[in-house]
């Protein structure tokens, strides 16, 4: 945004929107993203988080529309990653290099690695409070959500949670709040969860349980990307609960690539077989669909069906790219099956099965491989494999 938005009396959203970014470290951001930062005015003025390095001036301009940046007393860094602290040293020159930057214990290590000796850092303890005058801020360590340094800052009187990357969405648009953007926010939030947080689902469950047990009231959630949840923060918390349980729907995703269309033809037949049992199926060609969109579909799919031609005794490189990505995000409790065509040596299915086992997936079919071009009998086998996959999905859901 090019002007600050007052989100509560004396609390402003002062971050920047990155309208142009379409590739966020390998995550497709069709609607850009935002780097949110928040200014709290009190007896002590506080800035929570900064922005990507190249947006430093825009952040300072936004702050200057409310107060002189030099009047900020304390800066809080909830997360070291460079989209939130890249501008830190530039911004601190304007605020005052001697002013304190508060962060978590791991934040201290990580910020020191990025900016050795350039910041006056102090690590806060988990649960530590900071009195600003009328307001009190409390710090919550949230390691691995999604970096070791991640923490939340909670404004106690206003019941506002500044949640760093958690609950974020890569979205730069004309909306600043959940009630403005509407239902669409959940599609963005789901993609964010699938691609950034899925592998830390156990930690998310732990956090949600401890937040519930502590009785923490939350009127508003301010993440570091995308819109602020002011109308219904409970809705995104409920979604995080659902996603972190890794609950799947009756759905299969067929991830495939093809060289001379044989594996593509097989993929369609497998899909027909799955669909014949009224189980949802998505066909995703790895050169047509972005890996981060595939991951979003994988998040709630019970079965992963992967088709790859054999190329030079291995799996197709683009399929390998997507599989490596999925593996790192650690989807749990999934079913899997492989298929693919080959010319003279057909290792792909065997390699895929090994990968499924490494991902602790239940391989429910030995796999189908077809030399050169599938014949009618091969297509029947593909259809039949699809049916078996669907039946297993129904049986286990």
């Amino acid at each position: 945004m090019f002007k600050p938005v007052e989100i509560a009396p004396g609390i402003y959203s002062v971050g920047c929107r990155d309208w142009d970014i379409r590739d966020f470290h390998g995550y497709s951001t069709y609607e850009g993203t935002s780097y949110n930062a928040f200014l709290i005015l009190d007896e002590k003025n506080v800035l929570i988080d900064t922005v990507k390095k190249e947006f430093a001036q825009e952040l300072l301009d936004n702050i200057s529309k409310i107060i002189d940046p030099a009047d900020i007393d304390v800066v809080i860094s909830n997360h070291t990653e460079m989209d939130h602290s890249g501008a830190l040293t530039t911004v601190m020159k304007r605020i005052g290099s001697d002013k304190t930057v508060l962060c978590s214990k791991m934040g201290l290590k990580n910020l020191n690695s990025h900016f050795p000796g350039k910041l006056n850092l102090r690590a806060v303890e988990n649960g530590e409070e900071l009195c600003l005058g009328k307001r009190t801020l409390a710090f919550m360590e949230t390691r691995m959500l999604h970096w070791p340094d991640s923490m939340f800052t909670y404004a106690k009187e206003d019941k506002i949670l500044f949640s760093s990357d958690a609950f974020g969405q890569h979205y730069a648009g004309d909306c600043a709040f959940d009630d403005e953007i509407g239902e669409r926010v959940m599609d963005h939030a789901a993609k964010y969860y699938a691609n950034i947080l899925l592998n830390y689902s156990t930690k998310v469950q732990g956090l949600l349980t401890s937040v519930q047990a502590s009785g923490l009231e939350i009127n508003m959630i301010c993440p570091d990307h995308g819109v602020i949840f002011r109308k219904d923060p409970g809705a995104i918390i409920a979604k995080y609960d659902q996603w972190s349980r890794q609950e799947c729907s009756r759905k299969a995703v067929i991830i495939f690539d093809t060289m001379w269309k044989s594996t593509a033809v097989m993929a369609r037949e497998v899909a027909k077989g799955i669909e014949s049992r009224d189980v949802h199926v998505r066909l995703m060609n790895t050169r047509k669909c972005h890996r981060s969109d595939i991951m979003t579909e994988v998040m709630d799919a019970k079965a992963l069906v992967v088709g790859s031609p054999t190329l030079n005794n291995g799996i197709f490189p683009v399929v390998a790219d997507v599989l490596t990505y999925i593996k790192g995000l650690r989807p749990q409790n999934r079913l899997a099956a492989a298929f693919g065509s080959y010319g003279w040596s057909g290792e792909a299915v065997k390699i895929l099965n090994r990968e499924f086992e490494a991902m602790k997936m239940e391989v429910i079919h030995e796999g189908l491989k077809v030399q050169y071009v599938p014949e009618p009998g091969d297509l029947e086998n593909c259809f039949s494999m699809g049916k078996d996959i669907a039946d297993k999905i129904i049986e286990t859901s």
Partner: protein
Amino acid sequence: MSKYECPCDYVYDPAEGDFENGIEAGTAFEDLPDSWVCPLCGAEKEFFEKLD
């Protein structure tokens, strides 16, 4: 025997071992196989820090 902490907050306690991954109680961190990784976040042994 010392405990070791992963960047993700997991602490390897030799008194407990890591039963789920086949590490018996009483195994020193130094004696863990090189293939052992953090059961929570997957980080390798070299990223762990010794706790006092």
